[in-house]
C-alpha cells in the first residue's frame, strides 16, 4: 500500500497537448475513481501511472518514490485491463501466477499464493481452465486475481466493467468494492460511467478535456458541483439547467419570464447571465411554478416527468405517483436550498 501523488502532469503527442497539468493526491488505501467522457485523458493518465505511456512533464510519485522514469515492472503496481488481457495460452492458475513465475518464485510457493486469491474470487474450481472456456465475468475475476496475487502497492483498473452486461456490471461493482475493503490496497479506477464512480469511490476526480474539473467525495460532487460540467455529468437523470438572470428581489427570472425561487445567491449579481441548476428530485408536485408536461415515465418506485419550464427541457423525479397527461400543465414546487447558480459565461459556480 502506498499513496500516489500526481503533480502538474502533462502529456503531449507531438504538438498536441492532451493533459494540461493534472494534480491529484491519493491517500494510502484510498479508492479513487477517474471519471469523465471519452477523450478526456483519464485512461492516458492511468497508463502514465502504470508506466505504459511516457510522462511529458510533471511528476508522479508512488509512496515516496518518483516513478517517472521507472519501467512498469519496477513500479510495483498491478493493472486490470478493459479487455482483461489474459494470456490465452495459459490456464487460469498460470495466468494468476505469471508474475511470480517471472520473479523466479518456486512452484509450490506460487500455488500457495494463487490458491487463496482464487478462493476470494470464487475461481478455485476453474484453475485448470483456459481463458477461452470462461464467461466474461469469470475472465474479469481472473484479471483481478492476477492483480491480487502480485500484492502490489497500487491497483489500477482501466474501465474493467465496460465489456460486461448491465446486470453483471452491478454485481462486479460490489465485488470490486468488497475486495478493496478487504485488501485495503490503494486503488485507481478509470470509468466513463458516473454511476460506477458514485457507487465505488472514496474520492472522485472528474476530468474533462485534459484538465481536472473537480475532486471530491461522491456526495460533495453531487451536492456542490463546482461548475456546469460537473453539475451536468454527475447524477442521473442529469441536473436541470435553466438560463436566466437574478432579479433585484433575490428571485431567478428565466428567459421566458418564469420566476423561480433561489436559496443562497452567493456572489451572483442581479442582471448577470446565469444558469439555474436544479436536481430532478428536488422538485415536488403542488406549488406555483408551471410545468408543461411532454412525457411521463413511470418506473414504479418513482415517476419521471419530462416537460418544459422557463424555456428549457427539464426532468422531474417524483416519489409520488402523479396523475398528469402528456400535453397538460402541472404546478410544481422547488426546494430553494437545493438550487445551484452558475455563471453562464464561465460555467463556474456562483451560489454559496
Amino acid at each position, binding site marked *: 500500500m502506498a499513496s500516489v501523488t500526481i503533480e502538474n502532469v502533462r502529456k503531449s503527442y507531438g504538438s498536441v497537448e492532451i493533459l494540461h497539468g493534472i494534480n491529484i493526491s491519493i491517500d494510502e488505501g484510498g479508492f479513487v475513481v477517474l471519471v469523465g467522457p471519452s477523450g478526456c485523458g483519464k485512461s492516458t493518465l492511468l497508463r502514465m501511472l502504470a508506466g505504459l505511456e511516457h510522462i511529458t512533464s510533471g511528476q508522479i510519485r508512488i509512496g515516496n518514490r518518483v516513478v517517472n522514469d521507472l519501467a512498469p515492472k519496477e513500479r510495483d503496481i498491478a493493472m486490470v485491463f478493459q479487455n482483461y488481457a489474459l494470456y490465452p495460452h495459459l490456464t487460469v492458475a498460470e495466468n494468476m501466477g505469471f508474475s511470480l513465475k517471472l520473479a523466479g518464485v518456486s512452484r509450490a510457493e506460487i500455488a500457495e499464493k494463487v490458491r487463496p486469491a482464487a478462493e476470494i474470487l470464487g475461481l478455485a474450481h476453474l484453475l485448470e481452465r483456459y481463458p477461452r472456456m470462461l464467461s466474461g465475468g469469470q475472465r474479469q475475476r481472473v484479471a483481478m486475481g492476477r492483480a491480487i496475487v*502480485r500484492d502490489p502497492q497500487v491497483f489500477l483498473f482501466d474501465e474493467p466493467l465496460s465489456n460486461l452486461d448491465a446486470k453483471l456490471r452491478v454485481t462486479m461493482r460490489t465485488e470490486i468494492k468488497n475486495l478493496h475493503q478487504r485488501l485495503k490496497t490503494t486503488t485507481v479506477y478509470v470509468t466513463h460511467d458516473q454511476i460506477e464512480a458514485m457507487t465505488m469511490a472514496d474520492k472522485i476526480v472528474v476530468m474533462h478535456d485534459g484538465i481536472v474539473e473537480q475532486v471530491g467525495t461522491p456526495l460533495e460532487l453531487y451536492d456542490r458541483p463546482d461548475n456546469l460540467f460537473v453539475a451536468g455529468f454527475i447524477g442521473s437523470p442529469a441536473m436541470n439547467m435553466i438560463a436566466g438572470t437574478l432579479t433585484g428581489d433575490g428571485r431567478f427570472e428565466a428567459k421566458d419570464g418564469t420566476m423561480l425561487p433561489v436559496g443562497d445567491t452567493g456572489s451572483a449579481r442581479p442582471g448577470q447571465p446565469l444558469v439555474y441548476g436544479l436536481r430532478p428530485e428536488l422538485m415536488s408536485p403542488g406549488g406555483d411554478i408551471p410545468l408543461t408536461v411532454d412525457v411521463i415515465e413511470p418506473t414504479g418506485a418513482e415517476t419521471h416527468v419530462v416537460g418544459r419550464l422557463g424555456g428549457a427541457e427539464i426532468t422531474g423525479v417524483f416519489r409520488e405517483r402523479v396523475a398528469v397527461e402528456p400535453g397538460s400543465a402541472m404546478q410544481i414546487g422547488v426546494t430553494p436550498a437545493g438550487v445551484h447558480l452558475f455563471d453562464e459565461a464561465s460555467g463556474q459556480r456562483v451560489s454559496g
Partner: protein
Amino acid sequence: MPEPDLAENPRMQDDPPPRKGGWARLSESRNGLGFLFMLPAVAFLLFFLTYPLGLGVWLGFTDTRIGRSGIFIGLENYIWLFDDPVFWLSVFNTMIYTLVASVAKFGLGLWLALILNRHLPFKNFFRAIILLPWVVPTVLSAMAFWWIFDSQFSIISWSLMQLGLIDRPINFLGEPWNARWSVIAANVWRGIPFVAISLLAGLQTIPQSLNEAAAIDGATPWQRFTKVTLPLLTPIIAVVMTFSVLFTFTDFQLIYVLTRGGPVNATHLMATLSFQRAIPGGQLGEGAAIAVAMIPFLLAAILFSFFGLQRRKWQQGRD
C-alpha cells in the same frame, strides 16, 4: 433437409403435387443442388490435378520416352534410381536446400515481422517494399542473382575486393558448395516476404494489452517475446512454415535459371533433375519416377505439421 411430412400438412395432402421432371426435383433438393454447384470444381480438380498426377505416377512405372509410348515396367525405374548416385545427390541437395533455406527464412522473416510490427515512420512504405521480392517474377530475380553471382562481374566480389578483403573474384556458381550457398541465399531472399508478411499478420492479431500486461507483470522484453508473443504465434508459424517448406522443396525456377543443377550436379534438386531427365533427356518415365519420389517427403512434411503442430488445447473453444 427432411422431406415435408404430408400427414402433418393437410394443405399438401389435399393438393397432391404434380409429378415433376428430374431437373425440377434436382433444383429443389438441397443435396442435388449442392452437387450441381460442386460440379465445376470437381471437373477442375479431376482434369487439372488428378489426371496429371495420375498420369505422372503411371509414367513412373513405364519406360516412356519422348516420341515413343512406353510399356509397363513395374518398379524398374525406381530400382534404377536407387543405384543412381546423381539421384541420391539431388535428394541430399534438396534436403540441405530446404532445411537451410527454411530455417533462414523463418529466422529472418520473424525478425522482419517483429520490426514491422512496431510503430515505425513510413511503416506502410516499408511493408510494401518488403513484398517486392515476392512480387517480382522468379525468373527476373533469378537473372538478377545470376548477375550478382557472376564469376567476373559480381558486385559482391567487386565490393569485397575494393575493401581489400579478397584478392580475386569469388567463383560463386562454379564451386559445388559455393553454388549451394548461393542458390540458398537467392531462395531465402525470395521467400522472406511470404514468411514476414504472414507472420506480421499473425502478430497483429495479438492484442497490445497482452504485452503491456506482461510488462507490468515484470517480464523483460525477451521474456515478453518468448513467453507471450511466440506461444501465441505458433499456430500461424506452423501454417506458414508448412507452406514455406513445401514451396522450397519443390523449387525449380530459381535453380534452373541460376545453375541448371550444376556444377557437376551440385545444385540439382529433385525437381530440376526430374525435368532434366524427362524433357531435355527425353526419359519421361525416369523423370516421372523422380518426381513421384518427392511425394513421400512432401507427405511427411504435411503430416508433421498436421499432427505435430495442430491446434493447441488453449485454442479450442469450450467443450
